[in-house]
């Protein structure tokens, strides 16, 4: 018996060693491969371009180095069509500047913020990285991972970005990012067929909206499809009601907490009370806090006809189209968040939009070992971000998939009627307020999001959530 056991052990040990040996040899070439990781496309394209000239010829841009250089770039375009488009921009750039290699990595959206923290804290921050602006952009800048490009932006050519996009790329008077992923509006999508069947008109004021909701309720249709487990979805209602009631002035004040600014000021109380009133009246689905937008549960309510309206970001246009274009064309319309007629009578502007003018921006991290700016690399990054991202090829590709570049003039010629409406409203707006959950400092964001759960869950009063947000905001301001 002993012999048998010994034999079997020997056999196991042998297999193990061969396996292990196998493993180390097979992973060795993988290690070598990482050095030679330069994207394959650069070679052929580079030769062709020398004679053809560069697409940047004749423009007022910094002269780029002819020395070999490697630039690392992180984006979150893991999926087509975005993926092909950003890769195309990088390839066109490398074709024109064959000495510069751009190593592009597509990170996953879910864990992107974590990845950036890990990379930055380990001294491996990419030279170009994308982000959503707002609080985190400020944090990256303050921690020394963002070049100030105000002067370059003033001096050199760049696309004519819309004012809101420039504003959202700026922090503390410094330009820190180049927009590249387009505008996102936020409006109410509605089921045209249901509206037609019930003889409903698109509401212009909050009172009309409530009348529409009542009519829908009578017909056993949930007025709003909302999946508030995601929290930023419920926040859209809160943001708009604040904006309509105060023209967003009260939010700006609450953000600084100066001159009596507070999240308990009238507009916030108005917004909170309105929402809780709507919850009580059954304007939102039952168990609204258990439904999640990440799993498309809000879209599902729209698709099966149990809900008639949905306040959401304009990415829903391409999302719903992708799911079923025919159904989209037949059923989906859009209108802007109705006006507050009382506030309007008092002269409060009703043309504030919620959304983002940059989608995402590209920020540069080009510093030398000693902490000084690596101008050669920064020049190259600037040219890449302004001239290859955001060039005609890039913008047309964006445009064709329903994303509107944050560049003046692109609001013309939009074919999709809903998209056209959304963008027109966006351009008419006197002010575009970035989503609170991206605009507020990160610690306040978390509080704000929890407050949205409690608000829609009727667990806390508008005053209480206002106080909680004030407290978090004061704490965040004190830490600056």
């Amino acid at each position, binding site marked *: 018996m002993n012999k048998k056991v010994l034999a079997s052990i020997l056999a196991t040990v042998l297999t193990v060693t061969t396996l292990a040996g196998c493993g180390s040899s097979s992973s060795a070439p993988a290690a070598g491969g990482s050095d030679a990781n330069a994207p394959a496309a650069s070679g052929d394209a580079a030769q062709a371009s020398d004679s053809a000239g560069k697409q940047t010829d004749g423009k007022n841009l910094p002269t780029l180095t002819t020395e070999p250089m490697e630039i690392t770039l992180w984006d979150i375009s893991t999926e087509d069509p975005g993926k092909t488009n950003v890769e195309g921009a990088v390839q066109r750039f490398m074709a024109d500047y064959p000495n510069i290699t751009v190593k592009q990595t597509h990170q996953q959206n879910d864990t992107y913020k974590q990845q950036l923290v890990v990379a930055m804290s380990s001294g491996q921050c990419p030279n170009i990285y994308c982000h959503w602006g707002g609080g985190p952009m400020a944090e990256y800048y*303050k*921690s*020394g991972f963002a070049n100030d490009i105000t002067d370059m932006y003033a001096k050199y050519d760049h696309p004519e970005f819309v004012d809101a996009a420039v504003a959202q790329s700026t922090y503390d008077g410094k330009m820190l990012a180049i927009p590249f992923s387009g505008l996102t509006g936020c409006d109410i999508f509605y089921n045209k067929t249901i509206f037609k069947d019930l003889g409903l008109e698109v509401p212009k004021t909050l009172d009309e909206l409530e009348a529409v909701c009542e009519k829908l309720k009578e017909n056993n249709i949930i007025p709003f499809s909302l999946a508030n487990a995601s929290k930023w979805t419920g926040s859209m209602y809160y943001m708009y009601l604040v904006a309509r009631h105060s023209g967003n002035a009260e939010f700006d004040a609450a953000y600084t907490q100066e001159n009596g600014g507070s999240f308990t000021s009238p507009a916030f109380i108005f917004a909170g009370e309105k929402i809780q009133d709507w919850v009580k009246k059954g304007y939102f689905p039952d168990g609204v806090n258990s439904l999640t937008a990440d799993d498309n549960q809000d879209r599902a309510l729209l698709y099966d006809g149990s809900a008639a309206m949905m306040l959401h970001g304009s990415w829903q246009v391409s999302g719903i189209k992708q799911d079923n274009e025919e159904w989209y064309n037949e059923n989906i319309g859009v209108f802007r968040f109705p006006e507050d007629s009382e506030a309007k009578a008092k002269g409060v502007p009703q043309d504030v939009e919620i959304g983002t003018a940059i989608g995402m921006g590209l920020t540069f991290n080009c510093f030398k070992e000693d902490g000084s700016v690596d101008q050669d690399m920064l020049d190259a990054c600037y040219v890449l971000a302004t001239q290859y991202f955001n060039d005609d090829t890039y913008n047309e590709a964006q445009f064709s998939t329903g994303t509107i570049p944050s560049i003046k003039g692109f609001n013309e010629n939009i074919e999709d009627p809903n998209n056209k409406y959304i963008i027109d409203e966006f351009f008419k707006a006197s002010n575009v307020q970035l989503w609170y959950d991206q605009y507020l400092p990160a610690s306040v964001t978390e509080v704000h999001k929890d407050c949205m759960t409690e608000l829609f869950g009727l667990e806390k009063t508008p005053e209480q959530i206002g106080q909680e947000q004030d407290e978090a905001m004061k704490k965040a301001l004190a830490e600056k």
Partner: protein
Amino acid sequence: MKKDNNVSLARAKARSTARAATVFLIPALLLIAIFIVYPVIDTFVISEYKWNGISADRIFIGMDNWRALIHDAMFWESFKHNLIVMVFSILLQIPLGMLLATFLDAGGKKFNIFKIIWFLPYLMSSVAIAFLFVYALATNGGIVSSLATIIQGKRATVDLLGTSPQALYTVIGVMAWQFTPFYMVYFIAGYGNIDTSVYEAAIIDGATRWQYIKHIAIPLLGPIFKTACTMSLIGSLKYFDMIWNMTQGGPAGSTELMATYMYKLSFQQFNMGYGSTVAAGMFILITAIALIFNKLFKVKEDY
């Protein structure tokens, strides 16, 4: 003279034992030191700083973070959630796993199909589990709400994930669904380790199967049982994956666990210093609870 001899013999034996033990232990200890102990020390160091996690300068603030942690209601709230999860995980997963394993052990090979299907939940990834349960528990068209509607004869909503405290218990249920199969397999292996002659002897002595399980198998499985409880205990105190995919700690923090709280602070709110304090506090609490548990339920050991 003879005594001396004995002593030196014992010493020599002890020395050779120590040598053998060192040889066997070194690879494991080395790996653990590099990949776990060092990061833990690092975490404790960072916990003394005010640091956003990315900036080159971090400010030493001594025990300030720790003082804040002691008064941090959020942290203790999530610790409380962890304790609830822990208690129910042990009470659900271990007995259920044992029950399933006993059934399979009694049934033998012909029940293999049960074993394979029962094991499926453990193989599914947390992403898929979270997705399917979010839909199964949805207030609109979810399985639970639909069943309630059928039973009551009118439209009924059962909101299991959107309100506290149900959300936490719901998540505990899903966790039990996911992990019970592992304990099942674990106890099957435990049964497998019991000498078949023990079983045969018991049966010859006229013991029924139930008597065998109660008086022979379960006591013999003592150490295995305790290990399983410890695993479930530690696992539920540092749980992250499925909760993160399912509720992200919501609604309004009612399923917030220490690990999700730590993750949000460290990687989303630019508060790595305090996040590390939470992580370190978590480490201390879990270790303490695990050690207390092991002291309380000391199984007789002999080498």
